[in-house]
């Protein structure tokens, strides 16, 4: 058969695409469960990182199961929603809904010294792509115990610094209730202060848009938890 003919070329391409496609589909199917395990373990690691727990290599799932005492989903009124698994709630999608129709996951963690912390997921936009994180609250529902932030592709050395402890550790001890009013932490330029007396952290020099992204992410994702945090606050006073 003439190898340069159009018929040969078309058939050749067709067969090749089918073979390659089948091979890829097969690989993807075969490896899916393992990949999902890795993704879940990574998420658990991030949740634990917010509560300042660093699991040892290969023991992420065990540590998570030990530390996380319960997970539940609340609505904007602070009432629990039944039948939804907090771990599988897609925070990225939820953060785009209006505040009162969101499903809000809460991870309850017991730290080594027996204290209870509540970890809330946040999700927003940086300069180049999504940023996300987890914020751990003390049992009083007002002060932040720890925070963890991550990003997909912020500028290395600038916006990407939000994932470093140097940035996230600033959040420790900050409070979201000031004079009885709910104000999620502001991220401001180094040396400045928010006008309304809100608790604040220093943003990253040169990473202004990412820093602002963190600020609005906290506003957008923590505000719906107001009722929940308030109920924690009241039950502890």
């Amino acid at each position, binding site marked *: 058969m003439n190898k*340069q003919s159009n018929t040969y*070329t078309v058939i050749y391409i067709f067969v090749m695409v089918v073979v390659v496609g089948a091979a*890829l589909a097969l*690989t*993807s199917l075969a490896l899916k469960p393992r990949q999902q395990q890795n993704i879940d373990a990574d998420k658990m690691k991030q949740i634990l990182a917010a509560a300042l727990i660093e699991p040892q290599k290969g023991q992420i799932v065990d540590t998570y199961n030990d530390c996380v005492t319960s997970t539940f989903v609340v609505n904007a009124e602070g009432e629990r929603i039944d039948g939804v698994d907090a771990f599988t709630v897609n925070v990225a999608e939820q953060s785009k809904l209006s505040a009162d129709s969101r499903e809000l996951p809460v991870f309850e963690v017991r730290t080594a010294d027996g204290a209870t912390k509540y970890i809330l997921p946040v999700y927003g936009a940086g300069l180049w792509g999504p940023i996300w994180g987890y914020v751990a609250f003390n049992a009083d529902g007002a002060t932040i115990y720890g925070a963890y932030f991550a990003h997909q592709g912020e500028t290395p050395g600038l916006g990407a610094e939000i994932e470093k402890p140097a940035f996230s550790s600033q959040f420790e001890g900050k409070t979201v209730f000031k004079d009885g009013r709910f104000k999620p932490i502001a991220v401001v330029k180094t040396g400045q202060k928010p006008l309304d007396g809100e608790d604040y952290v220093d943003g990253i020099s040169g990473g202004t848009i990412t820093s602002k992204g963190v600020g609005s992410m906290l506003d957008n994702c923590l505000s719906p938890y107001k009722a929940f945090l308030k109920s924690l606050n009241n039950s502890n006073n």
Partner: protein
Amino acid sequence: MAEKIKNRDAFFNPFSKNNPVVVQVLGICSVLAVTAKLEPAIVMGISVIAVLAFANVIISLLRNTIPTNIRIIVQLVVVAGLVVIVDQLLKAFAYDASKQLSVFIGLIITNCILMGRLEAFAMGNKPWPSFLDGVGNGIGYTIILVIVGFFRELLGSGTLLGYQVFPQSFYDAGYVNNGLMILPPMALIVVACIIWVQRSVNKDLQED
């Protein structure tokens, strides 16, 4: 092919005399991107060896059936397929490394070394020599990646494969990690130094 290339040469030449990075200056962008730490450099090197060796064998097996006017497309499809498989394998078995490498595994497809070897070697040689050529070139690429990664991680972070190398007493005495080594320009400068050393050793590579 007019001249018959010996298997030995196909395998060993790319290590130094015909190294894809420092002599042919191919695949430079991935050298910039993945060598800030040693571990991703090694994983990237192994991935390129695997993709290059298998792509070379597959293309070499098909070489007499490929219609010439679509040969580049065929090569690309084979390479892309293999790269996706490697990416999936890494996500399943080396998740942390795959997170660090992120898009760069996908960009192996555009690594000029691959297209170069497929077009220049695999299209005209039998599978076994093609396999050796692929592994050889992959190792040649990996050697450079590892050397660059070694210096950048050692001087930039004071660690190797994540283990602290310089003791704390160095830092107490005023030693500071060189932050410039982490940034991409230093990868080019280290590559340039390797080229310099290599040309001074191999006089026949020097150009007038």
